[in-house]
Every structure is written in C-alpha cells, then in structure tokens.
C-alpha cells in the first residue's frame, strides 16, 4: 500500500509562533485519517501546507506522490479541498460555481454537465442549485463546498472541520457522504476535526495534534485501549480534586489517575470490581463524592491523558 500523504518534520512558523512544529505522518491510499485537535493546535495550518496554499518553513510533504513544495501544480490536480469555512461566492448560483470549477480543471462541457448531475445526487441540494448561494443555509453551503471539491474526482480529499457549526442532521449527512466517497469511490480522506465522535465514527486512524505536534496516532480502538480498558470518573466537591487524587493513590486496582479540577479520571482493568475500593478510599480520605461513573475510554480521555486537558472543553 502506498502513502497518499506523507510528511516528514513538517513545520511552519509565523514570526515567533510555531504553528506546526515538526509533524511526521503517513496516510495510506484509501484511508480516512482523522486529524484531531483543539482550536489553534495546528490542524488548519497543516492542511494549508498539504494543499499547497502555504509553504512549509521546515520539513517536506508529498501528496498523491508529488512534493507540495516543488510540484504544487501536480498536487492541485489530484486533490480536492473543503476548507473550514465554505469557500463560496454568494453572488453565484451553485451550478455556476461547480461549472467554473470544472472549467478550471480542463473538463469538457459534456464532462462538466455530467459531473454536476452526479454531484447533485451526491450532495442533495435539489433545485437550490440554480439559486444564488447567498440564499443557502449553512448545511447547504457545506454540501456545495464539498461538491466543488469533488468536481474533478480527486484522489485525495482534504476536509477541514467539515461539520463545525452544522446541526445534527446536516452533520449526519456529511458523515454519510464521507463514508460513501471512501467506501464506494476509494477516495483517501484527510479529515480534521475537533469533534471526538466524528473522528471515532469516521476515521480508520486518528492523529492527535496539540501545540503543533503530533502527540499520538493509531486506530481509535488502539488509542482508547492505550489508557486502560475501563474508566471510573469521580466528581467531587469543589476544591477536593487534589484530596481525591491523594485518597486513591494507594488503591492497587487503579492503574492511573488524571485530575482536572474537581473531576478525577481513574484507569482500571476491571471497572465493576474497582468501583467499591475506589468509593471506600475516597470516603476514608474525607472526600465528598458528588458522582461516580463507570465507562469505557473515549478519545477525549486519550487527549486528556496525553495533553492534560480536555479536547471538548477546548473546542467549546
């Protein structure tokens, strides 16, 4: 299997700020790669480099077999991109935008007409395709933006936070389209997101980026298993977080603890068996427990373990 996207020591500085600080990654052909991180982590900057909109200040990257620095034109012919904000012209109709895209990719009139028809079926915009884009809802704009990225049938599709700000129905529609493009058309998809459930639901592999660095990578299951099979979450009275951590420090079944404020997350091998000893230890330590929850790990727990902060809080 060949790498559709490959980066080695990829870096980008803006003055004194290092937005991307040496990212190594390899995305295989036909894979959905979820690039997960909070706002400002370096996701969009990485995408702008990989899609030839920005030059790296360090490292190298290739997409679809071509170097983004020395062969940007060849890369552009092979990629489709839907950026974070739907990049559309509100005074054109949807059909005009798609037709213009097709012309710039050198498609014949017949090819353009056929592709617009095919894309209309895919993104379900209906009669609105002939209306000015300024009248579209946010979800329709995102779907048209996705269609614009697909006019020339790219090998690699970059989706930069494709569902941010969308309602649940529109989000589900985008997820279905992403699955279809990958499973039915074999498209490689590089998906950035700040939504854990999105990465979990769509991605074959996930890379977690924080402060410009790739801090973890693997399948969602691998990442979740890496922090234990079960988690016990104790919510304690205000100001008692540290006391709670101290109280469970010597409980043998607790493999690891992460404290954020008044919440304590404990990794354990067997959650059902560990709840009682944990509750007893907290009580013996004089900690007032307001809630005790047992669940399996999420990618947010992985993020907490690696970075010490909650992704969902950063995303909010």
């Amino acid at each position, binding site marked *: 299997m060949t790498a559709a996207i490959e980066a080695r020591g990829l870096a980008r500085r803006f003055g004194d700020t290092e937005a991307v600080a040496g990212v190594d990654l390899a995305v295989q052909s036909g894979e959905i790669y979820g690039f997960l991180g909070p706002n400002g982590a370096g996701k969009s900057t990485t995408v702008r480099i990989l*899609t*030839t*909109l*920005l*030059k790296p200040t360090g490292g190298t990257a290739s997409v679809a077999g071509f170097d983004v620095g020395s062969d*940007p*034109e060849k890369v*552009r*012919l*092979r*990629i489709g*991109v839907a*950026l974070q*904000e*739907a*990049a*559309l*012209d*509100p*005074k*054109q109709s949807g059909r*005009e935008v798609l037709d*213009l*895209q097709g*012309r*710039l*990719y*050198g*498609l014949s009139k017949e*090819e353009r007409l*056929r*592709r617009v028809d*095919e894309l209309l079926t895919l993104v379900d915009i209906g009669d609105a395709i002939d209306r000015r884009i300024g009248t579209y809802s946010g979800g329709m704009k995102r779907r048209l933006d996705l269609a*614009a990225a697909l006019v*020339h*049938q*790219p090998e690699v599709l970059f989706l930069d936070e494709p569902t941010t700000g969308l309602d649940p129905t529109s989000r589900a529609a985008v997820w279905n389209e992403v699955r279809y493009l990958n499973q039915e*058309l074999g498209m490689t998809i590089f998906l950035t997101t700040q939504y854990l459930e999105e990465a979990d639901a769509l991605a074959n592999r996930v890379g977690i980026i924080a402060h410009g660095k790739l801090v973890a990578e693997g399948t969602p299951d691998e990442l979740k298993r890496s922090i234990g099979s079960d988690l016990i979450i104790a919510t304690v009275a205000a100001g008692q977080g540290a006391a709670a951590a101290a109280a469970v420090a010597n409980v043998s079944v607790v493999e690891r603890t992460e404290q954020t404020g008044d919440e304590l997350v404990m990794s354990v091998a067997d959650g059902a068996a560990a709840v009682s000893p944990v509750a007893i230890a907290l009580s013996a330590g004089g900690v007032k427990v307001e809630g005790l929850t047992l669940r399996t790990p999420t990618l947010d727990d992985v993020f907490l373990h690696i970075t010490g902060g909650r992704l969902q809080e950063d995303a909010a």
Partner: protein
Amino acid sequence: MSRVHPRAAGFWTDLRTVSLRSIRLTLRDPEAFGPALVIPVFFFVVNVGALQKFVEGNFPPGFDYKAFQLPVAVVFAVTGVSRANALVVDIQDGYLDRLLLTPVRRGTLLLGLMTADFLLITSLAVPVVLLGLILGIDVATGVLGIVVFVLLAGLWGLAFTGFPYAIALRTGNPTAVNNAFLLFFPFAFLTTAYLPQEAMTGWLATATKLNPTTYLLEGMRAILQTGWEWNSIGKALLAVGLMGTISFTVAFRSLAGRVNRN
C-alpha cells in the same frame, strides 16, 4: 460514476473563465458602478454651467468649454472603477483560496477582473459622451473619433485599476480599497481639468506638466476639438502606457505576494 481527467485548462481558458465570472457578477452588482456615472455627469453639468461664459469670454472666439470639459467628465467616470472590492470579498469569503486550490494560472485571476473592468469602464464612458453630443459638442474626428475617444478613456481607466487591486491584495480590507480614489486626486486636480495649460502659472503649471493626466486630456481634447493630431494623441497613449506599467507592476507584484504561499 464515470471518470473524468482533470488537467490544467490553459491560459486562455482560465482567462475566459475568470473573465466571464467577473462580467456576470458585474452585471449583478449595478449599485457598485451607478455612482461612478452620476458623479462625473454632475460635475460636468455644474462646471460647464458655472464656468462656460467666464472661460469662453477670456479665450478666442470658437473655444468650446463643453468640449474642453467633456474629457474631464469621462476621465472622472472611468478612473478608479474596478472590481477590487469584489476581490476583497473573495479574499474574506475564502473564495480566492478555492480558486488558488485549482490549477488556474495565477495571473488570470487578476487579468479576468481587469477584462470585466475594461468592459465596464468603456460602458461608463459612452453615456457621458452621449450627454456631450446631446449638449451640442461637435466632434472634429467624427464617428471614428468618438470610438477612439471612448477606447482611450477605457484604456486609461484600465491602466489605473492596478492601484486598487494592489491595495486589495495587500490589505484584504474594503475600507483601504474604498480610499484608493484618494490616489486619483493629484492626478485629477493638478492638471488642466478646469483651465487650459496656457492659463496656468507657478507651481501648478509645473505640476500639470509632470502629470500624465494632462497629456491624456490633451489627446482626448484634440480628438474632440482639433482632429487627428497625432502628436497629442501619441502623448496620451504614452501617458496611458506609463500609468499602466506602474499600476500593473504593483498589482501583479501584490498578487505574487499573496499567492507565493509565504
């Protein structure tokens, strides 16, 4: 799903595509160029009304102040008209990025806008010229002269568009683009807009001699009042060429600065 084979479309296809979009959007945006027509017509009527008797009374018989003022009105109508604000909107909406993600020739992104500008600018010149004809101006060079007069105005307006595009590309700021008309003030007023060169004295006479707009106006006036006076018309074309060289250089350098991915 059928396969398509994307490729770079080529310079002329890119230029045609970007130009057609710009023309289409210009037609959908009449409020953007309406004032460009009203203001010069207003000044033309006011200037002629206020100064015609005074100026004609101080010059040899046969001096037609309306014909003298018409080029000024046309130049006012066509200078500074561009789709630079639309370019700012494209930058702010991210649509310029969408275009930059395609294999489009970067230069055509600006040339396409300028093509639409040229068509708009010549369209703006026509009604002002018609007004002059209705008010009784005799054109010494006839119908062909009117066509050349309008084309000369169009080329001047086109030559000036580089400045607002440069500002749009460097700042991405609509306010800065709107203030670009201030650049035209010295070109518009330190010239023979209101009085002939021989009536000027002192520093104003020197400034008008250095101002390319003076030579443009003289060329246009020659077409209206004198005939095919190639010395004046040639100087007007040189003035257009000089202005175009400067403004296009700064505009395309600004485009390069924005798209060179730094």
